[in-house]
């Protein structure tokens, strides 16, 4: 079956969005000042998926696709696409008349160069997203034909401006992409042009007058400001010096207060492509966590709802599987798995430990371990303090360790010098992109960050993961991932805690800022200010 989704369908959807919004007439003009925190190291989104880069670069670059809030594909630089019957040829029909910010025309050669020479080679996740792409043909200036070794259904979910920005061939060809001027002086096809970067202060982008979306963007200017102190960020928001802060820029404790203040709102929309999951990684190669029983007991003894309600102010959902429940939309999520209680089950956890032979000594201690905590904010430290208490109830004595980012990264991913580690992972819009890296034997890559640090290795699971990556049939695919989740629920190399909900806090004068599934990693092309 050849299925061909013409752009018309998506354009209708787009029309609906416009139609819906036009009940309130958009006003053109104005400057949107928003929080970018911390200051990004560069703007090279083709080299790094670092959060603060994602807050800025997708305003400058376009992707082949965008995705709406229901995760449907919305055409961007690709007007339409066509997947062949065997799933091994994907043809993109590119938009005509698009120009780069420097005036050069955008063509299929840019797409070919971006995917083959840049994303597949130097992007952190690109080699995975495009691993089946063997070559790209460009029969004419507006057609790009991707030739795949195997079907890669997940690839079509990785084509956003954030995940796979299309970059100008004429400015990168023949250079070292890791050392190019484009990193700090980006030139894209997106709605806003890069103007200046005052280190320590702000990045300024101005409207692209020649943007290919007719009449867009509405805003004249977008300025990303760096404010190191969280309390000051909140004050700046209250004082209307900034209008938008995402990814927890305003801490939850202040966000719930602003939510109840006139003139401000809070949303959890705009994170469904990211799918952040809080979890504990165990070192499965050393005592005591080489025994699945103790890993299971810990997962049972932690009160997920307590963590969410008391430390994250109610924002989050208890994890019920190794996959986020957001994967229900694509049929990959399995319900009703054991060992993920929303509320702690101390008795059951102790029973598991007793059975596995973890006997309590005179002080009631069955095992001791050091718990490492991700150094990305105070919330994690509080979560660690809770876990220390909660696990004492089942006789596991914890010592907490909180280090700075480089020390922590080296300990967990290069030296493997840890027992258990609280962390969070982006599961991204497909398990192949965000989840496989955590469990596959081929993902035990010493020195590489955010991969299989548990060093869990299970040939049965490996076989399922590689089958899942290539299966084009949706029903068969969900059957494969049901087995994956079943195995992980029992083996627990990683104990998933809760599906995180990041908060975006914004001034009510700012409208239509969340029109894409990418949220803050989207483009602001339809955002406008009603003052």
């Amino acid at each position, binding site marked *: 079956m050849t299925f061909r989704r013409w752009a018309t369908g998506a354009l209708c959807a787009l029309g609906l969005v416009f139609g819906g919004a036009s009940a309130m007439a958009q006003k053109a003009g104005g400057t949107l000042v928003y929080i970018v925190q911390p200051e990004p190291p560069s703007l090279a989104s083709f080299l*790094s998926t670092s959060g603060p880069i994602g807050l800025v670069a997708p305003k400058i670059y376009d992707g082949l696709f965008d995705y709406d809030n229901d995760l449907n594909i919305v055409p961007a630089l690709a007007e339409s696409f066509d997947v062949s019957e065997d799933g091994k040829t994907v043809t993109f029909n590119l938009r005509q008349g698009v120009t780069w910010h420097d005036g050069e025309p955008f063509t299929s050669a840019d797409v070919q160069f971006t995917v083959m020479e840049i994303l597949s080679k130097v992007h*952190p996740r690109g*080699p995975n997203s495009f691993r089946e792409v063997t070559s790209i043909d460009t029969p004419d200036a507006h057609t790009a034909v991707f030739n795949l070794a195997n079907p890669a259904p997940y690839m079509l979910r990785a084509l956003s401006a954030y995940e796979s920005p299309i970059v100008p061939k004429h400015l990168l060809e023949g250079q070292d992409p890791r050392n190019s001027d484009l990193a700090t002086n980006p030139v894209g096809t997106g709605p806003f042009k890069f103007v200046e970067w005052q280190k320590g202060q702000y990045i300024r982008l101005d409207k692209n007058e020649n943007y290919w979306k007719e009449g867009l963007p509405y805003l004249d200017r977008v300025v990303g400001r760096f404010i190191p102190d969280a309390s000051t960020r909140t004050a700046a928001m209250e*004082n209307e010096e900034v209008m938008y802060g995402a990814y927890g820029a305003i801490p939850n404790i202040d966000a719930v207060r602003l939510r109840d203040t006139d003139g401000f709102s809070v949303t959890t929309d705009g994170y469904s492509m990211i799918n952040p999951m809080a979890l504990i990684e165990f070192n499965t190669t050393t005592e005591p966590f080489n025994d699945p029983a103790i890993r299971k007991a810990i997962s049972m003894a932690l009160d997920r709802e307590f963590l969410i309600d008391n430390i994250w102010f109610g924002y989050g959902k208890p994890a019920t599987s190794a996959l986020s429940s957001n994967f229900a939309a694509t049929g990959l999520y399995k319900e009703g798995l054991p060992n993920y209680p929303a509320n702690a089950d101390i008795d059951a956890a102790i029973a598991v430990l007793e059975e596995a032979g973890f006997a309590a000594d005179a002080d009631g201690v069955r095992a001791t371990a050091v718990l490492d905590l991700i150094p990305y904010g105070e919330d994690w430290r509080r979560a660690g303090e809770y876990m220390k208490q909660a696990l004492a109830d089942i006789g596991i004595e914890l010592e907490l360790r909180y280090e700075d980012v*480089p020390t922590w990264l080296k300990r967990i991913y*290069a030296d493997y010098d840890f027992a258990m580690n609280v962390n969070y992972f982006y599961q991204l819009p497909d398990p192949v992109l965000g989840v496989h890296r955590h469990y596959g034997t081929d993902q035990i890559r010493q020195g*590489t960050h955010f991969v299989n640090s548990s060093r869990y290795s299970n040939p049965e699971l490996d076989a399922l993961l590689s089958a899942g990556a290539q299966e084009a049939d949706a029903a068969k695919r969900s059957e494969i991932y049901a087995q994956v989740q079943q195995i992980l629920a029992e083996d627990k190399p990683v104990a998933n805690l809760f599906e995180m909900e990041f908060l975006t806090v914004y001034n009510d004068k700012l409208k239509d800022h969340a029109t894409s599934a990418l949220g803050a990693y989207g483009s602001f092309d339809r955002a406008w200010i009603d003052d």
Partner: protein
Amino acid sequence: MSHFARRMRYVVKRLLQAIPIVLAIIVMNFFLLQLAEGDAVDVLAGEAGSATPEYMAELRAKFGLDQPLPVQLAVYLKNVMVFDLGYSFRHEMPVSELILDRMLATLLLMVSTIVLAVGFGIVLGLIAAVSLNTWRDTAISIFALITYATPLFWVGLMLIVVFSLNLGWFPTSGMENVAMFYEGWDRVWNIAHHLVLPTITLSLFYLALYTRLMRASMLEQAGQDYVTTARAKGVTENRIMFVHVLRNALLPVVTMAGVQVGALIGGSVIVESVFAWPGLGMLAFEALFARDLNLLLGIFLLSALLVVAVNLVVDLIYSTLDPRIEVE
């Protein structure tokens, strides 16, 4: 030898003495920073989300981090000799350019703070000493005690709450309005407007020090023999206080100010962070967490040079304030 020539010789001698000191500081800083776990590549790769070991090895080679330590140090020293502070791979900019960029913001904050703190500190200390054991003295002493004991970040946040959020007189943070991008005199005025709260916050702390110091110093001088002599000669009390005692009492204050100019360059991290002021303190702070050693060494070197220079200036001011102190 004339007075001027003697001074010049003194300055040259002190500058020559400074060279080995600065070199020793560089070498010490270099080895101290190596004690931190992890390097710039770990941080960059960690932020990027994922990176292959080959890529990280390539980066280390590019940054020169794969060389043995003594070689890295030799390369750095060689570059410093020709005033090349190296390259910040994190910011993809030469270190000197980064530092110069932030220098202006730091100098603005530093100079206005020193002027405010020393100026008001001298005045308050003077008033307290003149009206010893009256309500004025008590009020000033209590004020100094409170401002000295209050954490800087809290003072900053409270000033923001009162003067930005409640009264709306000043912006909460930043160095200029980034929605408007003013030019010319409007911009100068706008920056001055943004400078008020950070300056007050930072000066409050130092103000307390200078007030206490000035008061104690005035009281000490007031008991000296020369005061009795002046009084016996029939000099008015006002002239004794404001000409004789004041001039002598200033010496310790000048010493203190000299020490603090050096500290201020890096010591305002908290104020820069609370007010998002784009100064060198924040730059150094971030560089530490990013293991951007070239940048850190550059900032440390600058601080060292500044301390050396300020100490020299202070010694020269001494001899002006008190001609009995000879430079030699």
